[in-house]
Structure formats: structure tokens, C-alpha cells
């Protein structure tokens, strides 16, 4: 089975070399047969890589320790179901995972763009296959997960115990998929650029669509990662601005900027160069993320796939950036903007400001992440840049972004007049100020928390105002309330789906604000039978249960917990010690409600039954996790294309020609 996997890997590699050459040649020579051949070649890579993947998983399931990678990342004691996690838990396996996942996604993307963008597709295919080629080359020549050992060990070394968690079945695959999926909008954009069609805005819809797909996967990956950190890393937090977390955040930031600014090109034919730059930056950041994750220069808690090959990723990142910029410069002339900026206060300029803010946050994050290397090189002082720095610097920038998120959608395209501005912003501004006043009176005095809640208030009322206005005007024309609302959402899905996402982001913002400023924690030393309190919670330590497994020693503490007078139930925080790895994994017990989480986690189990526990009250963390499904829903609403009949495609000019006509109702009503 392993041999079959090896052979299919080699076959896939040869095929991708062929596809790369023939794909580009087909584009340049405009040869339809060449392009078709390359395309089918690319599709055939998928089954080959699936065979290789199955071979590896098969080896895991059957404890085939003759395969080096299996011996390193699994053992007899590992539950079989974790074969899937073990598959991508090390460097070589995760590369194979990325290759197979990318080949599937890219094939779907290729199928779609072949139909929609026939001239761009061959070049995009070329770019995609180069990405795949890189991964397959690294797998075959540097880190082959199917490589065999000369001597078969009796047992493997085992999987990293921190990975034994339900979240690990989905978080790492999502995160890796997210990073590599940035290559899709990149391929579409650079493909259009190579084809000399970057200036025609035909690639925009596809670029936006794949950009959003990638954004969605990245977002879900980040949320799942935070959730995993919260439930298993056992310190009561969810985000620590660790280098690996940062490296996943940076492409997300750039991608968020891209999916917004692409709308300006779609609507106004502007920002053509800027969008290209953004997509190139996003892909560079994604590659940087992979580099930092794979034996990067900065130590991190998350680097499970550590290796010495980080520098290859860095070199390829540099090369990609360089080549992309060369293509950009060569095709510079095709990217002249069609529209003209009419006013400094308009939707267009708000989009630009938003883009710059996102990039600035990405830049600050990058700066903080690499500063230790910088200070070491310049001054020979090793410094650490951690959470306090990022909170202080990125926190205010993110608040500014949320404010912009609330206000910008209310600005009209092209030009805002003072009067229309006042009308649109009246309610949000009043709302923001009243929220600030109420929370201040109620005793929330932390200035940043007040500002954050006020800004969330502005953003929420902005969205509600937009929904309300549209729904009312539809209702006035005779639609029932629920129907009016649904029709409104349906009439412009990118816009109203975007608003749903904005609401989810506000939920996230509220959760982050409340839990960062008003989390309470206390370390307590307890003997069995002791009772302690934190806030309204009373918890009684019953005792500890020790249980020995083949790979670990588990110490589970038993607590009885009351909230006020109400008995909540038992809570079981535990700590598992893995002697082979000399790693202790603690898992908090969490009593979660929308208002607050009560979180108990063991720190130390000492002698004579004495133990140290940490108790936390984390307000409103629930909102962060609840925002996830809403965010996914909103993105899907915005993503699903709407079939538009030809006769409603109106130009602004034809619309205004009829302004004042008796006919205007039919013009403006055409969209219904």
C-alpha cells in the first residue's frame, strides 16, 4: 500500500510538471487543445494524491511503524480515530495534506473559471500548478511522509498530546486550508494579469468569490483555533499574540481588505492596481505564515510541524513576491482606473481608509513578530514582544476599524453631501453617544471599554438603520414585514450578507472587549473539602481522582459548584501528564452561559492532597463562539450568486435620463 502511495506521488509530480509547462504554453499560443490537456492533467492529480493520502492513513490505522512518519507521530496506545489528526500532525504529513486539499479546491476553481474566464484560465492554471509543484517537490525530495525505515520499531513515538482534542479534527485542517486557499484568488488575479486582462474587470467576480471562500476558511480556522486554546491550553484565554497565531492573522487581515476593496472595482472600475497589490500581499502573508509555522525563527507554542525547511518557504515567498511584482510592473499599463474619485468623503475613500487600516494592523503584527530578530541583529539584545504590546498597539487600531465598519456602509458612492451625511449618521452617532453615557453611568469606567462599547453601538445601529430603511420602504409598497425584510436581503446579497457578517464581527468585538477588560481570576490553594468563592460562584473541592493510562497519568479534580444559591452541578477540570513527552495538558472545566463563563483549571497538584486551582469568570466569551455560525451564514449569503435577468441591468446614465419621467417607478422598481 505504501509503495502504491509512493508511485502515485511520483506520478503526480511528473504530471504537475507537464501541466505547468503545457498550461502556460496553451495560454501563450492560444492553443485550446493544449489548455484542455493541461486542465485534465490537473484534474487527474487529485485521485493520485488521494491514493497517496489513503496509503498514509492506512499505515496509521494499521500501525505500520516501518513508515518513518507513522513511527514518529503515532503509537499503539493512540486511539485509532486519531489517525486522521496524526496524518497532518507532523511536517511531512501536513505538506501532503496541503497538497491534496489544494489540488481539490484548485480543480473546482479551475472548472468554474474555465467557463467564466476562458482567456484567463490557462494562466491561472499555470500559477496553481506551480504552487502545487512546489509542495510536491518538497514532499518528494525533502520530507516524504511515506518514506520507510530500515528497521521497523516495535512501537511509535506517539502523537503530541496537546493535539488529542476534538478541535484538532477540524482546526488544523481549516487553518492550513485557509492559508493555501489564498492561492486561489491570487491565481485568478495573476492569471488575469498575465493574460493582459487585468484592466478588464471580468476577473473581479471570480476574484471576489474565491477571495471570500478563502476568507471564510481562514476565519473559521482562526475561531476554531481560539476555541481550542481556550478549552485546552488551560489558562483561561483564547488569543496570546503568539507568532503562529499572528502568522494566521496576517493573511486574514490582508484578505479582508481584499474582499472589500474588490467591490470598488466591481462597482466603479477603480482600485485596479490596488486590488492586485492586495492579493499579492495576501498570498505573501500566507506564505510567511507557513514559513513561521514550519521551523520559523520565532519560538511558539503552536509549532507542531517544526522542521528545518522553513528557509525554503521563506526563499520561495521572496521569489513569488518578486515575480508577482515584475508581472505587475510589466502589465502596469493595463490597470488604469476607469472611474474617477469625485469626493474625499465617499464610499470609495472609506474603502481605501479601511484597506490601509487592515494593512497597518497586519504590518504592526508582523513588526511585533519579527522585532525580536531585529533587536538581536542590531543590538544583540534578545527581546520579547508579546500580548501587552499587541493589545496596546493593535487594540486602538481595531477599534478604529469597527468604527469605520459602522459608518462607511452609510456613505454614498461617489460623493456625500453635508446634508445626506447628517441624515445618515444622525442615528448611529446619537446611539453611540447614548451607549457611552449609559455604560458610564452604570459604572463601566475603563475608557477603552467604554469607547469600544460605544463604537459597537454605532456599528449596530448603522446596520439596523440600513435594514430598517429598506424594509420600511418595501413595506410601504405593500409587502408584509417578514417578506419585506427577506426580499431586501435577497435583493442585494453581497451587501446584506456583508451586514450579517458585520453583526457577527460586532459580537466578536463585544466578547473580546468584555473578556479582556472584565475577566476576573484568582489562584486558590485547596484541600479536599475546602470551599472557595469567586464572585457569585461557590465551589467545593471534593477530591482528586488519579487514573493511569498506557500513555498518560490523569488527575481529575471533582468540584461541586453553586451560582449564588443555585446548585449548578459537578465540574471536572483535569490535568494529564504524558511521561514520554514530559508534557502536561490541562483542561479547564467550563460552565458557559451568554453572560459569563465560570472556568476552573488545575495549576498544580501538590503533596498531601493540596492543589492549586485557578478560577476565572470570563464575561461574554460565549458571544465570540456564537458569532462563528452567524459569520459563516452571512458570508454564504454574500457568496451565493444571484441570477440576474438581462433587462434589469441598468446603467446609472440611463437611470438618470429618466429621472423626472412618469416612468421612474418602473426604473427604480426594476430590481424588485
Amino acid at each position, binding site marked *: 500500500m505504501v509503495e502504491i502511495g509512493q508511485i502515485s506521488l511520483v506520478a503526480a509530480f511528473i504530471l504537475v510538471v507537464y501541466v505547468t509547462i503545457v498550461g502556460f504554453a496553451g495560454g501563450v499560443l492560444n492553443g485550446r487543445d493544449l489548455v484542455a490537456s493541461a486542465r485534465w492533467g490537473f484534474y487527474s492529480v487529485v485521485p493520485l494524491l488521494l491514493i497517496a493520502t489513503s496509503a498514509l492513513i492506512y499505515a496509521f490505522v494499521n500501525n505500520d511503524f516501518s513508515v518513518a512518519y507513522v513511527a514518529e507521530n503515532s503509537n499503539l496506545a493512540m486511539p485509532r480515530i486519531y489517525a486522521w489528526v496524526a496524518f497532518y500532525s507532523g511536517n511531512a504529513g501536513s505538506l501532503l495534506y496541503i497538497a491534496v486539499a489544494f489540488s481539490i479546491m484548485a480543480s473546482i476553481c479551475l472548472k468554474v473559471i474555465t467557463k467564466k474566464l476562458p482567456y484567463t484560465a490557462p494562466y491561472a492554471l499555470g500559477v496553481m500548478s506551480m504552487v502545487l509543484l512546489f509542495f510536491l517537490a518538497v514532499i518528494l525530495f525533502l520530507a516524504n511522509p511515506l518514506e520507510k525505515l530500515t528497521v521497523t520499531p516495535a512501537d511509535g513515538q506517539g502523537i503530541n498530546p496537546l493535539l488529542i482534542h476534538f478541535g484538532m479534527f477540524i482546526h488544523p485542517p481549516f487553518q492550513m486550508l485557509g492559508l493555501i486557499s489564498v492561492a486561489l484568488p491570487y491565481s485568478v488575479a495573476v492569471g488575469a494579469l498575465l493574460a493582459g486582462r487585468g484592466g478588464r474587470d471580468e476577473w473581479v467576480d471570480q476574484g471576489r468569490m474565491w477571495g471570500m471562500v478563502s476568507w471564510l476558511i481562514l476565519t473559521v480556522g482562526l475561531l476554531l483555533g481560539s476555541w481550542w486554546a481556550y478549552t485546552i491550553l488551560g489558562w483561561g484565554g483564547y488569543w496570546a499574540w503568539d507568532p503562529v497565531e499572528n502568522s494566521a492573522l496576517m493573511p486574514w487581515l490582508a484578505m479582508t481588505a481584499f474582499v472589500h476593496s474588490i467591490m470598488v472595482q466591481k462597482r466603479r472600475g477603480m482600485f485596479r492596481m490596488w486590488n492586485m497589490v492586495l492579493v499579492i500581499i495576501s498570498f505573501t502573508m500566507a506564505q510567511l505564515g507557513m514559513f513561521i509555522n514550519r521551523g520559523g525563527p520565532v519560538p511558539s507554542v503552536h509549532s507542531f510541524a517544526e522542521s528545518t525547511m522553513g528557509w525554503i518557504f521563506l526563499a520561495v515567498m521572496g521569489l513569488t513576491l518578486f515575480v508577482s511584482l515584475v508581472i505587475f510592473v510589466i502589465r502596469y499599463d493595463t490597470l488604469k482606473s476607469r472611474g474617477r*474619485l469625485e469626493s474625499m468623503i465617499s464610499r470609495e475613500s472609506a474603502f481605501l481608509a479601511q484597506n490601509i487600516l487592515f494593512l497597518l494592523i497586519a504590518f504592526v503584527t508582523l513588526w511585533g513578530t519579527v522585532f525580536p530578530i531585529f533587536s538581536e541583529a542590531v543590538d544583540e539584545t534578545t527581546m520579547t514582544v508579546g500580548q501587552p504590546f499587541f493589545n496596546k498597539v493593535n487594540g486602538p487600531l481595531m477599534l478604529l476599524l469597527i468604527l469605520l465598519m459602522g459608518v462607511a456602509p452609510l456613505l454614498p458612492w461617489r460623493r456625500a453631501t453635508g446634508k445626506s451625511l447628517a441624515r445618515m449618521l444622525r442615528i448611529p452617532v446619537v446611539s453611540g453617544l447614548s451607549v457611552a453615557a449609559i455604560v458610564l453611568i452604570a459604572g463601566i469606567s475603563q475608557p477603552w471599554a467604554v469607547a469600544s462599547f460605544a463604537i459597537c453601538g454605532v456599528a449596530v445601529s448603522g446596520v439596523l438603520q440600513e435594514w430598517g430603511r429598506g424594509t420600511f420602504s418595501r413595506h410601504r409598497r405593500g409587502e408584509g414585514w417578514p417578506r419585506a425584510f427577506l426580499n431586501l436581503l435577497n435583493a442585494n446579497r453581497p451587501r446584506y450578507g456583508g451586514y450579517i457578517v458585520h453583526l457577527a464581527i460586532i459580537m466578536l468585538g463585544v466578547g473580546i472587549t468584555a473578556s479582556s477588560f472584565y475577566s476576573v481570576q484568582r489562584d486558590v490553594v485547596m484541600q479536599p473539602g475546602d470551599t472557595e468563592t469567586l464572585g457569585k460562584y461557590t465551589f467545593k473541592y471534593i477530591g482528586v481522582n488519579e487514573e493511569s493510562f498506557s500513555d498518560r497519568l490523569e488527575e481529575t479534580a471533582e468540584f461541586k459548584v453553586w451560582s449564588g444559591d443555585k446548585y449548578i452541578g459537578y465540574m471536572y477540570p483535569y490535568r494529564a501528564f504524558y511521561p514520554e513527552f514530559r508534557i502536561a495538558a490541562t483542561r479547564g472545566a467550563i460552565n458557559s452561559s451568554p453572560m459569563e463563563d465560570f472556568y476552573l483549571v488545575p495549576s498544580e497538584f501538590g503533596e498531601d492532597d493540596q492543589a492549586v486551582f485557578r478560577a476565572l469568570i470570563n464575561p461574554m466569551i460565549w458571544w465570540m463562539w456564537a458569532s462563528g455560525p452567524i459569520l459563516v451564514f452571512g458570508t454564504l449569503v454574500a457568496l451565493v450568486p444571484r441570477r440576474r435577468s438581462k433587462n434589469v441591468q441598468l446603467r446609472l446614465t440611463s437611470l438618470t435620463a429618466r429621472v423626472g419621467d412618469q416612468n421612474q417607478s418602473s426604473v427604480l422598481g426594476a430590481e424588485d
Partner: protein
Amino acid sequence: MSIIKLTIARSSTLTIFVILLVLVLIFLSCKPPVEVSELDSRTNSLNKSIMCPICPGESIDQSQNELAGHMRRIVREQIEGGKTDSEVREYFVERYGPVVLLEPSTSGIGLIAWIVPPAGLLIAGCSVAIALILMKRRRSEEVVDDTLSHNDRVRYYKVLEERGISEDDLPGREV
């Protein structure tokens, strides 16, 4: 007509405020009625700013390592002994070097870490302003101009407003 419009405007404003009120009530619940002693809050914030020297990137607050637990106790003892926050930090820097602080110092090379982000904000702000000015100045013959005359625009927005339609709900430009 204007009365109807006014009522609609009012009821929609009212709805927004009611929803906001609910939201604010939720915000208010975020402050648990817990009195945190000054000792606790100082210990916690210090713990969050000191790195555990053997567990890369993790603060002693975050890490489950024994050393981190030991350092947490030292922090607490020192605060109880009357030391100021910076004295406690200094104590750890003397033993482990500046690497032990999770936030770069505001002197020496560490200062650069702090200066770059606001400088970036300044540069970013200026470049947006310059980009916008350049885009605005672009001569109209370079671009296909589908912009409206002033009068047309006023009428266009008037119609939109009368019908309560957002410009975004109209079909987009076709290329």
C-alpha cells in the same frame, strides 16, 4: 404624506433604540460584581507581562510549567513585600535578561518597537490622503466619464430618497 413619513421615521428610530437598549443591558452585565483586591489585580497584570523563560512566548500567567508557578509565587511575595511593579520586573530582568519581559522597554532599542506603529499610522494616513488627492485630480479625458452634472445628481438622489432606496440596491455597473 409627510406625517406618514414622519411616523415611519420615528418608529424605525424607536426600534433601533429599543434594540440598542437591550444591547446596552447586555454590555452592563459584563462587569461581574466581584471586588478584586489591588494585590490580585496587580499580581495578575504583572504575571501577564512576564514571560516564562523556558516556555517560548508564554507568560507566567499562561504557562503551566512548574517554573512559571514558582515565578508567580515570587511576584506575589514581592508585591506583598511592598515592591513596586517596576521593581518586580527589574528583579526578573536581572536574573533572566530583558527577554523575560513580554513588552519591549520604552528605552534603548525597545523604543523602536513602540515608535514604528504610530509612525506607520502617520505614513499610512498621509499616503491615503495623497492617493485620494491624486485620484481626484486625474483628468477626466483619461477616464471614461459617466459622472453626472450637478443638477442631475441632485435629482437622482432626490428620487432615491423619496423612494427610500439605497443606491446599493440598484443593479451595479455592467462592464
